[in-house]
């Protein structure tokens, strides 16, 4: 346990940097989606033209925004759950239950990340329909988001174990 406690600070520092990066991706992707979709309407009505890649690229940004914000939401405690039972437990029992439950969620996201990377790399040579970008970029988002989620859940399981994943 002493070793684990010593690791806490560097682990937290790394996760904070990753969190800031993920938030940056969220700002860029959602901002970009609004700009592209609004520009598409403008182009259609005012310029009488439509942007061929608008649909596909805005969807790509959407997928990235969702999967990169999942770990951010883990840190802010925004994934809702049922606390009806856990709230009634004494603090010790609550922590004892939260550790394996959070660890299981971490294992789930690790599995998601592993499978996503595998499928993404297998189809890396396929191209998107409207632009010369790899179609694997879509699944890469699931992999990166899954991995970041797993890391944050693992940290909660080891150090915090509140069950909700809220930052302590």
């Amino acid at each position: 346990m002493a070793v684990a406690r010593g690791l806490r600070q560097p682990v937290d520092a790394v996760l904070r940097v990753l969190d800031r990066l993920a938030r940056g991706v969220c700002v860029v992707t959602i901002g970009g989606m609004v700009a592209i979709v609004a520009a598409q309407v403008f182009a259609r009505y005012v310029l009488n033209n439509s942007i061929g890649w608008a649909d596909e690229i805005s969807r790509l940004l959407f997928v990235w925004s969702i999967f990169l914000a999942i770990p951010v939401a883990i840190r802010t405690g925004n994934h809702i759950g049922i606390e009806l039972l856990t709230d009634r437990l004494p603090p010790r029992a609550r922590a004892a239950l939260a550790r394996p439950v959070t660890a299981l969620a971490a294992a789930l996201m690790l599995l998601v990340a592993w499978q996503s990377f595998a499928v993404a790399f297998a189809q890396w040579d396929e191209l998107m329909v409207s632009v010369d970008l790899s179609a694997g970029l879509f699944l890469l988002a699931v992999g990166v988001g899954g991995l970041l989620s797993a890391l944050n859940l693992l940290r909660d399981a080891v150090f915090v174990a509140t069950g909700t994943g809220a930052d302590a």
Partner: protein
Amino acid sequence: MTLTMIGIFFLAAILGMPLAFSLGVAAVSGILVSGFGLNVLPSRMMNAVNAFPLMSIPFFVLAGEIMMKAGIMQRLIDLANAAVGQVKGGLAHVAMGAGLGLSTVSGAAVADASALGGTLMGPLSKYYSRGFSAAVLAAAANLGPIIPPSGAMIVYAFVAGSTVSVGGLFMAGVLPGLILVTGMMVLCSVYAHVKDLPRTGESFSLRRIAREARRSLVILMMPVVVIGGIVGGAFTATEGSAIAVVYALLIGFFVTRQLALKDLPEALVNTAITAAGVGAMIAFASVVTYMMTIDLFPMQLASWLKEVTTDPIVFMLIVTGVLVVVGCFLESNAAYVMLVPLLHPIAVSYGIDPLHFGFLFVFNLVIGMLTPPVGVVLFVLCGVARIGIGEISRAIWPFVLLMYALLFVCMFFPGIVLTLPRALGY
């Protein structure tokens, strides 16, 4: 396999695992039991989110975030105060009026709850108990997804496929929404007279109403542009929601001038977090649905239901009961993804109008946002009011009962739901 998945989902959820991950664990167990390859997981999850219609979820949340930072709420509140502020329990009516105004520009109850709570909790709790104040605001926030635009209806129409048009579903919500807000105001009046609540507003003046209406005009025009454009077919619901964001930006920068560029990153991150909570559930729920389909569960369910009853009304009552229970355990967007593909085709085979069924389905799950334990709107307002879930639950039940009563009225009198969309040719 379907029963295994349902069992594991409930077990994980009750042990306190966030619902999205509980769905994920259930999905993985289904995949393992059936001997499928685990690589169905990422593709299903990604494709569930990779859909243009769903982008309206973050867009409507973002429009709400920007409107809040742009000071739009204050103008709506001033208008509502001028119109209904002077009666007994006037502030509760102001909350309803502001909720109604907000619901015509916003499509999500949770966003409305934080907007209403952030601006009105202070004034309300000065005169009324915190529990009642929070309950009034929660009920008002729930108008958001009933009155167009509505994120919930967009998701429903998307999952239901070609039999349901978003514009038609939007129009189906208008009349019930207006009846509901009237009923809730009557409820507030009765409460105000029983508890002898104080009069708080200034006296009635048409000039003041006219002045406030002029100040709010630019906001009141927003639904005309956004909903009008969607219903009129000028743009899709998703495009409409992006236009709502641009419209809110323009108001914030050039009309109220309270919005600053430095507000935007926070608004964008908040939006992403809200959307991710929904997106995670949709992603995992779609894997569960896929495994259920492989298990032929939809067919079994359909034939089982047909054995139980051939009466569409009985079928709708069963669905209502199921949704009341489901609404307690699932966030509504996940419920649409999992249950609409199961139940919508069955409803159509019973000869129920798709718009009628769709509206009742959405309305039912919207009510579920006000009932513990997973009443997301309640959670938001408990946070704002700093009260427990028990205190708000004790004050919310009259509103919940009223909503269920209206649900049954709409079920037995389809005209309330269908007249407006029919008149507009849906």
